[in-house]
């Protein structure tokens, strides 16, 4: 068991208004899964992914990652967990615009500080090749198409061989065709490299590619 979500609740407070976004969420993620978190906009997909990815905290319940309970971690410990365990892919790509494609993909490795410069460069180029971006390493993100940018962000997520990749609506900003190639690429990585993927989507076309789906409705799992 890679990840175990136990009775998670989350309520947002904005001003006087409280809004419960997640109700008693229980789920398990196994190593090598290719899972879609499905649900309409506002159903709590982002909230859940952020909690799984240690970017946000739940009000109650427990998260167990690789046997480690994530309750009561300091912000530095959470940062280290994100660095060591997760790759993130976002709907809006979120590449660092001042860095080149190469530098964007290199960044997670530089943060890890585990690899020599030579190793780092080999890993970056290999990953760029896997996602089909050979020769574009010197470009800036804004010089690329949306699909290419999302490939860079997939490369950035994969380069450090994370235990789990969390992708929040990775295709929502792309046209259908490009969206499908992106999901195919993710699936390819899942099958060839055994990378665990959990991605959210509200697009039924994309859901069809998943090996397992979790349906969220109004903050509740509705499978």
């Amino acid at each position: 068991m890679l990840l175990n979500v136990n009775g998670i609740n989350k309520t947002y407070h904005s001003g006087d208004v409280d809004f419960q976004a997640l109700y008693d969420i229980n789920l398990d993620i196994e190593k090598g899964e290719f899972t879609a978190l499905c649900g309409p906009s506002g159903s709590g997909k982002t909230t859940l992914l952020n909690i799984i990815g240690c970017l946000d905290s739940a009000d109650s319940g427990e998260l167990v990652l690789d046997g480690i309970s994530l309750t009561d971690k300091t912000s530095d410990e959470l940062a280290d967990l994100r660095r060591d365990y997760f790759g993130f892919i976002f709907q809006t790509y979120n590449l660092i615009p001042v860095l080149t494609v190469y530098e964007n993909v290199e960044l997670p490795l530089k943060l890890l500080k585990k690899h020599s410069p030579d190793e780092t460069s080999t890993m970056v180029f290999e990953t760029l090749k896997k996602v089909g971006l050979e020769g574009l390493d010197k470009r800036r993100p804004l010089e690329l198409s949306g699909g290419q940018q999302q490939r860079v962000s997939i490369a950035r997520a994969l380069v450090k061989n994370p235990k789990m990749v969390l992708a929040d609506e990775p295709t929502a900003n792309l046209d259908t065709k490009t969206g499908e190639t992106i999901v195919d690429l993710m699936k390819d990585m899942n099958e060839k490299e055994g990378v665990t993927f959990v991605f959210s989507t509200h697009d039924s076309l994309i859901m069809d590619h998943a090996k397992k789906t979790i349906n969220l409705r109004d903050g509740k799992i509705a499978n």
Partner: protein
Amino acid sequence: MNNNLLLAVRNLLRYKRRTILTFLVLSFGVAMYVFQISFLKGFTDKSLENMINFETGHAKIRSLTYDDNEPYAVKNIITNSSVIKSVLKKKKYVKGYTERLMFIGELDNSTDSVPCIAVGIDIKTDKNVFSLTQFISKGSIKTNGAVIGYKLAEDLKVGVGDSLYLTFRTEAGMIDSVSLEITGLINSSDPKANTSNIYMNIDIARKILRTNGVTDIAFKVADYMEIDSYIMALKKSLAGYSFWSWKKLGDHMLALSKSKSMGNYFFVIFLTIIAVVGVINTMLMSVFEKKKEIGTLKALGMRDKDIKRIFLIEGSLIGGLGSLIGIIAGSLITWYFVENGLDLVSMMGDIGKNVGFRVMGVVKARWSPSSIVMAFVMSILVTTLASFYPAKKAVKLDASECLRTIQ
């Protein structure tokens, strides 16, 4: 390159216009500071040099009863100056000495009269302490007659060969008057020597005052900054006299310099506030524009202290580069005025003596390396400190909130 530095540098280059604007404020401030300090130093140093070279030497020995409020009173006369001179002669650190007899009088060209300071000088030894005799431009100082400042001569409409009446009090207190032929004119870098003094052979001064004493014995030492310790040593052998170091005699000049530099400090404080506000503003904008990137960096596992560091580096780069540009610009302006000086005459007419300082004509700026270094260090310090608040704001932002922002 280190992540933090790389991101900071690239971010600076990203908003070029804003970066340049913040740079300019800082550069302008630093440039003005460097330039003003050099000017003030030029004025102060030159004033003190004039005072030392034309009036005080490194120190003066006077009678014990000498009263600063009545500087030319007759009771101040020292009658046994040879005792002092023989002591000074024996001290190795005394590089030269001379005696002067100074008194006040009125100069009269038979239509107008002006007050003046009359100075009897020892023609043979005056140059051991003072540079006055180098600046007698027309004629020379002779055993008879007197030399006056060229400006004083212009005011009294007289020239070399003409005579003036000098009215004064003798040692006994009687008012007396003598006619003195002008044998030369002084055209020096010291406005006082040019405008208000009349110089004569000390023997003539003694004769007309009917005294055999002097008022001042001026001397120069090996290291003028150490004058106080030399005076301490001399006091042991010359207990019955008062000592007046250039520091004491020039304290009004130093006070003037201080008060002018206060004005400078206000200007610097004003600019510092603008720079601080500018940097905080620039950095806060930078933080809020980069919310999503901050969220992304957090998602990638960058720790808060590293994110903070990116902004601090960005701030100190603005400070460092901005002040470097300022120092270069300020130094170029300063360099011009160090080489060519500022022409006070063309700036304010006459001989430009009304600046409060004892300077005239063309005054050169002087380098003040310590101020330049200080400006540089302070700029970096101030901008880095100013970045602390925005940097703290950046790390306090919630990662998931940052990622939700639409940018």
